[in-house]
């Protein structure tokens, strides 16, 4: 039992912020995965006589402009958000990890070139870059993922590069080199494990950002096609019909708030636990 208390999970369960984050995230994941079982209605079914219905026992979160059940659509929206979020974070994270380590380990000119590339991408306002890219590509979930990957991998690259550079010149790495350790051993046994901590913290913090970008693109009409129940589309429907009902925009905003809170709390809790300086300060 005492060994569990000292594991990462064990430490997280003692942090109220982390527990709240885990509960929120778990609830969202369960609802997204089992959306078909939980949803009281087919998310595409139109009930034209019940348009803009307020929340009730029949429609828990009300209905939209076509009489579709908002709760059922939000559950499906959770699937889209998690699919886009996880896929984009994994792909952009991997690209950033590889490029960041190349920059950190590579020759000076390559580091400078990659750094210039990362900074150029990061200099563009994310949503403007996303809109420009979306205008050039066919509309759909794949495009949204590609856009999010392009707009976010530079951040991972920058963080990994900085970590790699600082580790590369640390004494224990120099000692390993002096003892004749191979390049692969240095990278996979020493650098990578030390880079992963900040990397995961960034990934956790970045997931809600990615989900918000998807929602923002759908809200602006360049994300998923109309009819697809993404949270951003629900927000857009809510905006379009805000004079008819306030419930749609509230319902569309609520999961975005929760997912942002959940992953931000998780990221902070991970940072507190994984950063030795912060841990020793506690």
């Amino acid at each position: 039992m005492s060994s569990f208390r000292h594991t990462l999970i064990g430490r997280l369960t003692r942090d109220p912020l982390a527990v709240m984050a885990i509960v929120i995230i778990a609830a969202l994941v369960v609802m997204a995965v089992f959306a078909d079982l939980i949803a009281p209605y087919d998310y595409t079914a139109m009930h034209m006589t019940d348009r803009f219905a307020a929340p009730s026992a029949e429609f828990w979160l009300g209905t939209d402009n076509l009489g579709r059940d908002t709760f059922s659509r939000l559950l499906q929206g959770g699937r889209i958000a998690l699919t886009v979020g996880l896929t984009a974070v994994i792909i952009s994270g991997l690209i950033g990890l590889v490029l960041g380590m190349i920059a950190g380990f590579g020759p000076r000119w390559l580091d400078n070139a990659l750094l210039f590339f990362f900074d150029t991408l990061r200099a563009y306002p994310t949503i403007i870059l996303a809109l420009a890219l979306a205008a050039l590509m066919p509309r759909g979930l794949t495009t949204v993922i590609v856009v999010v990957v392009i707009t976010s991998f530079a951040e991972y690259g920058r963080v990994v590069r900085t970590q790699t550079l600082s580790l590369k010149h640390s004494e224990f790495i120099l000692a390993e080199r002096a003892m004749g350790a191979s390049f692969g051993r240095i990278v996979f046994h020493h650098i990578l494990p030390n880079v992963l901590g900040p990397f995961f913290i960034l990934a956790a913090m970045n997931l809600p950002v990615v989900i918000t970008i998807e929602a923002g693109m759908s809200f602006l009409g360049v994300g998923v096609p109309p009819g697809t129940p993404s949270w951003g589309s629900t927000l857009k429907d809510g905006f379009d019909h805000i004079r008819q009902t306030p419930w749609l925009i509230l319902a569309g905003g609520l999961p975005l708030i929760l997912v942002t809170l959940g992953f931000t709390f998780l990221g902070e809790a991970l940072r507190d636990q994984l950063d030795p300086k912060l841990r020793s300060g506690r």
Partner: protein
Amino acid sequence: MPKTEMHRAFPVLNRRQLLAGAAGVSAAAMLPVKAWAQEGRLNIRVYTEPDDFDPVDASGFGEALLYGAIYRNLIQYESGDDWSYRLDLAESIEQTSDTTIEFTLKEGQMWSDGYGEITAEDVAFTFERILDPEMNSRILPDVGTLSRVEVTGRYSGVFHFDEAFAPFWWIALPYLAGTIVCKAAIEDAGGRITTEVPPTVSGPYRVRELRPGERWVLERNEDYTGDIPAEYERLDIVYIGDEAAAEIALEAGDLDFTEVSPGSVARLQSNPPAGTAMSMHPSLFYVWVGMNMEHPKFQDIRVRQALQYAINVNAIIEAAWYGVAEPSTGIIAPGLIGNRPESLIPPQGDPQRARALLEEAGVENLEVTLNVLNDVTFTTAAQVMQATMAQAGIQLNIEVHESGSFWTLGVEADGDRWRDLEMIMNRFSMLPDPSYATAWFVTEQIGDWNWERFSNEEFDRLHREAGTETDDARRDEMYRRAQDIMEESGAYRFITHGVTPNLFYDNTVPGTRPDGLPLAQYFRRA
């Protein structure tokens, strides 16, 4: 930073001054929203941005609204509930034979900025530019069989036609093609107006500033010599594509007049925002779903017909137009010559018939893409279509476009996108003559406005002959047959003419055409 410098950079307020300032700001915030907006300034919303000062390049209602304010015609549409026109630059104008119209200009009508008097030379120059093949004018169809304009005196002239062309009175003279331009100014500009603001104007307003994507700022034209002077010191034509955003802008006091979405009608009628009024007008617009006949998916007429039957127009109108509009029978609205009493395919469609047609054509799992404007009415309609077409086993994908992208989808001059274009939900503006509807679907318009790439010899002949026919009963028959041909081709599913609900502040008397579209020059204070 020394204290003296700090004083210069940040004025120091004492407690009393701070409280007085706060009170002032609070009082200003409590002023009625319209307190500043109505002081000699009018903001009219336009749903499509005008993109050219030069009438020869005009393409739609955005320009018509702008030109009405800054230019003049021989005759102008009257504001009101009945279609009529009034003399503007013309002192007299009459049809002297089937192929001639004679006009005499009022004397002393001036161009601004020292360009002198408006003469018959300007009138002739205006129409000859449109006729000039090198100008490649998109409004050439509006002038029909016009062959030349003869100048018979400083203020008089004669329009000569190859054949009679009755629509000229309704679709050319008072609209885009009839917007008289200044010959001297155009020649100074090298043949086309490409300047930031027009070098000269003749209407009650002039252009002060253009903010692309946002607004056209007009101000009173002090050189105006007509009989409808500017009512406002400043008139802004504000571009807001989205109706919901426009409603919010009006309620915030940023607009004085806007068309609102059909979905808002019930709410606005039962609970109008303070100080506003609403008017409803029968629209002449026509909305339809078209299919690109040259696309491989739509080569077989049975596939096109299946799609026609798979679309439930009643459901679309109920959902997207909130039941305030009626299904249309074609492109010509009720009340106009050529309106059909009913369409060939019933508005409710027939999913079983659609399935049978697809089976007959040997097509399984048909997947098609519908292109629509990013507008809540159209995207809602598209989603209803998606649901009803699924009942016929057809998967409908929806592509939404911003205005700039949408209006070039089928235009050959703007790239190759027309090749991949499958289905389009489209809406065209309309004038009170049926030839203005059929003009865009003739063979010559393929790749310009005819995005279905529909080509039919009989249709082309009917359009041509109906334009020169002077017997109304005969014209009626010809235009009805023309719409039958369109529908029989399978490339068109007619949806509705819609309605035009306008919302405005009651200290404004809007000037509108009978179909509800604004005529900026007629707006007055209540």
